């Protein structure tokens, strides 16, 4: 059972990590809590559902289109709503409320188009592997490996490429970045695209592993946010570590306590961190 809990933690941790990475990336550049981030990802998951299951397209093609759609949707929301608000020098509170509004609209749209029923992205019985007295499916192994790859790729992007340097400059100080001549709006657009595509990946995995519902958008995002906060907002390594820490604490926590306390444990962990180490595990 111990090993099964470890595997369960790795799977949850991977999905939280993807959400935390995307959220962190966007927060760093724009400094506001984007509550619609999760639902943009859910939309991507539903695009894959619609193409692969309802229309019968090739699965990998649908996957690619789903990722691109999530990214594009994030980009659009930024272009039409968030950047307009930023130009008006709106406060972070206003942007948060706007993102809450977008989240509600998106979730309602998804429900209207796809119904609020629980949908699974693949119907076949998964390949199950036995590992040290625990079971893991093929999809779950893929999820964990791909998450590691994505995190690694994101790190490389930020540290080694010119674009990454620009993003880091922007997150350091937007004003100075503008003065130095960076096209901050274009960079933020790309940041939204990449972040939202990663969120889309997270929900596609969620759909493949357990299933999709329109209402998943906020719940899972909040877990990602907790992961980002306890890992240290502003630090890519931090969100990654925070996500797995959160997942492990949740899953081991409910070993002895009744399982419905999982969410309570997650938020209790958040409160403890905010009280005693608000800067998170790793500093900027």
């Amino acid at each position: 059972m111990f090993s099964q809990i470890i595997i369960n933690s790795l799977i949850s941790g991977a999905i939280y990590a993807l959400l935390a990475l995307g959220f962190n990336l966007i927060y760093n550049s724009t400094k506001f809590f984007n509550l619609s981030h999760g639902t943009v990802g859910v939309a991507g998951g539903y695009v894959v559902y619609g193409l692969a299951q309802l229309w019968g397209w090739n699965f990998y093609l649908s996957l690619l289109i789903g990722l691109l759609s999530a990214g594009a949707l994030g980009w659009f929301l930024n272009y039409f709503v968030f950047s307009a608000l930023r130009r008006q020098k709106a406060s972070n509170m206003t942007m948060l409320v706007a993102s809450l509004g977008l989240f509600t609209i998106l979730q309602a749209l998804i429900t209207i188009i796809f119904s609020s029923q629980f949908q699974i992205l693949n119907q076949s019985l998964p390949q199950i592997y036995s590992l040290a007295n625990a079971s893991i499916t093929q999809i779950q192994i893929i999820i964990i490996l791909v998450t590691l790859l994505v995190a690694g790729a994101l790190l490389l992007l930020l540290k080694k490429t010119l674009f990454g340097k620009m993003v880091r400059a922007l997150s350091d100080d937007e004003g100075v970045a503008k003065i130095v001549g960076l096209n901050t709006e274009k960079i933020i657009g790309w940041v939204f695209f990449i972040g939202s595509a990663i969120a889309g990946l997270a929900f596609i995995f969620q759909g493949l592993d357990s299933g999709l519902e329109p209402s998943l958008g906020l719940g899972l995002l909040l877990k990602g946010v907790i992961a980002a906060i306890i890992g240290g907002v502003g630090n890519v390594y931090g969100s990654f570590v925070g996500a797995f820490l959160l997942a492990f604490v949740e899953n081991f926590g409910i070993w002895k306590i009744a399982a419905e306390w999982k969410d309570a444990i997650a938020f209790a962990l958040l409160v403890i961190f905010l009280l005693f180490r608000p800067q998170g595990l790793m500093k900027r």
Partner: protein
Amino acid sequence: MNKTSKIVIALIAVLVIILGVVAARRAPRQSTVQTANAKEPVKIGFIGPLSGDAVNIGLNAKAAVGIAVDEVNQAGGINGRPLEVIYEDGQCSGQAASNAANKLMNVDKVSAILGGLCSSETMSFTAAANNAQQVVLSPCSSAPAITNAGDYIFRDYPSDSYAGKFAADYIYNTLGKKKTALLYVKSDWGEGIAKVFVDSYQKDGGQIVANEGYEQNSTDLRTQLTKIKAANPDMLYFVGYTEASIAGIKQAREIGLTVPMMGADAWDDATIWSKVGASGEGAMYAVIYAPMNDTFRAKMAAVVGNSEVTTCSPQAYDGLKILAQVMNQVGTDPTAIKNALYKVQYNNGVSGQSIAFDQNGDLVNASYVVKVVHNGQAVNKQ
């Protein structure tokens, strides 16, 4: 507060008082207008999950009610007045159902409410309905607590004090499993059955090796299933609604939990078995035995588009017919309807041969049948 604000507030207060007086004076006149007009439709409210969890069961029941209404109207309505049903979405949630009930009682002024389907729906408004002396007939809610919900509350669906006991006895005696793990949804329905199941199973002599609950909208039951697997049961009794059951059944097989599974009446929903595929092979569930007849089945197939008649649809059809039968005798006064319901004898129903209510408004008898899933289809277990 400056002067302008005070004036505005005073004006609003005066406006509210005037509107209140007008509305109060209008009310008695409205009801006299209604009873004077013999062609005014008789209105019954329906509350059920028309979206969200258990939507398939809700829509199927709505179809059954629609068929019943057409038949009543073709036979002349209620003493010559057409029967009309107002459908409200309870979303299998207490909050939505409570709002729906308030609207039906206070805005639409229905003569009776047929609903809710989910126990959580029904239990959210029975107190208010009973206090307002409004008749409620639930065709699906099985939580034991509803037995004592009040004088005006009835149901033509058996209480889970039967269902939990039936499952416990079946697992212990017929299947011969002595160590069962319990996984249940934390809703009025799930907790009701779970409690009865645990009591009955232990009284039979069985051992509950694991007892795990989950929040109604969870779709990740892996942790509970991991703990259950570690407890080494030889049977799993899984009380859940559609969405969590789809996730749970798949996840159970994925983590290597291979013991047989049995569920409760909410598993009588074909969407579960079509979605879980091979993971659902051999799963069993106990459901109320409803005799039905070919005419009913044919009409349902014509409306729904397939041959599925989910649990509660026969009861919803009979429920509406019972209300119509009673209203034909005594009219639309709720207290008269209530008194007549306690004495009603309804025969040749599609959900039972003869239906009558005991002093608590519950059915006097119930019989269950066990179904098993093979290749995505549920069939009666031999």
